[in-house]
């Protein structure tokens, strides 16, 4: 089950459509990192609204993804974590430290706009 990656201006949007196996997740990570380079994207949104479980592997892969993209100079935001999933994650000690999160796609876009515009218009602010 491949995750479709949408290019929207300077951003890439990956909307997960169904439960993912570990291999799918790693494939998503690699594809996003590659596409950020190809399209010189400034921001990435990963929409996990449909995920009903986020275990240690998924959290770690997402965190790695965010850090790898950061090394490419782009910002990532994870959107759509469900209340129950968040509750289970923190019980497991998975807090996605250092990873930006937002409520949904709309909020994620607003976050990226804020982050990336700031970077361009006033580098001293960053």
């Amino acid at each position, binding site marked *: 089950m491949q995750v479709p990656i949408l290019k929207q201006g300077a951003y890439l949007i990956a909307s997960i459509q169904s439960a993912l*196996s570990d291999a799918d997740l790693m494939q998503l990570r690699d594809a996003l990192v590659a596409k950020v380079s190809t399209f010189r994207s400034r921001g990435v949104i990963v929409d996990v609204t449909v995920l009903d479980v986020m*275990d*240690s592997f998924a959290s*770690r892969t997402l965190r790695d993804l965010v850090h790898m993209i950061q090394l490419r100079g782009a910002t990532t935001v994870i959107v759509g974590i469900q209340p129950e*999933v968040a509750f*289970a994650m923190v*019980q*497991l000690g998975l*807090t996605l430290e250092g990873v930006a999160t937002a409520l949904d796609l709309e909020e994620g876009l607003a976050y990226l706009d804020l982050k990336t515009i700031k970077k361009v218009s006033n580098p001293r602010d960053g």
Partner: protein
Amino acid sequence: MDETRIAIRVDMDVVAARQSGRALAVELGFSNTDATLIATAISELARNIILYAKEGEIILSVLHKSEPCGIVVTARDKGPGISNLEQAMRLGYSTSGSLGMGLPGVSRLMDEFKIDSRPGNGTIVTVKKWKR
């Protein structure tokens, strides 16, 4: 039929196991939050099987001798076993989500937690959650 067995060999089996677990929890009337906690615990247990024992099975069963009913998840493998259980229960916990055993995390998701493991004899983890 009170028991479901799911063989765990490849990573897709992890998804299958947690989906059956969630379906069973929902069928028994567990809240959405509890069903998610159960599914997450199963995911971690199944993952441990693949990581440390290569293969094994997840067994789901129902406890309904009396109200409230409960769900039992047993993770069984014939892997190398754990030599230092105390350490496993301590070391696994990691706020950064690194690849620990995650066993203390699992015990926090569930109401009851029991582990039986000896080097060379495999590992059996049994966890329970009661319907509130």
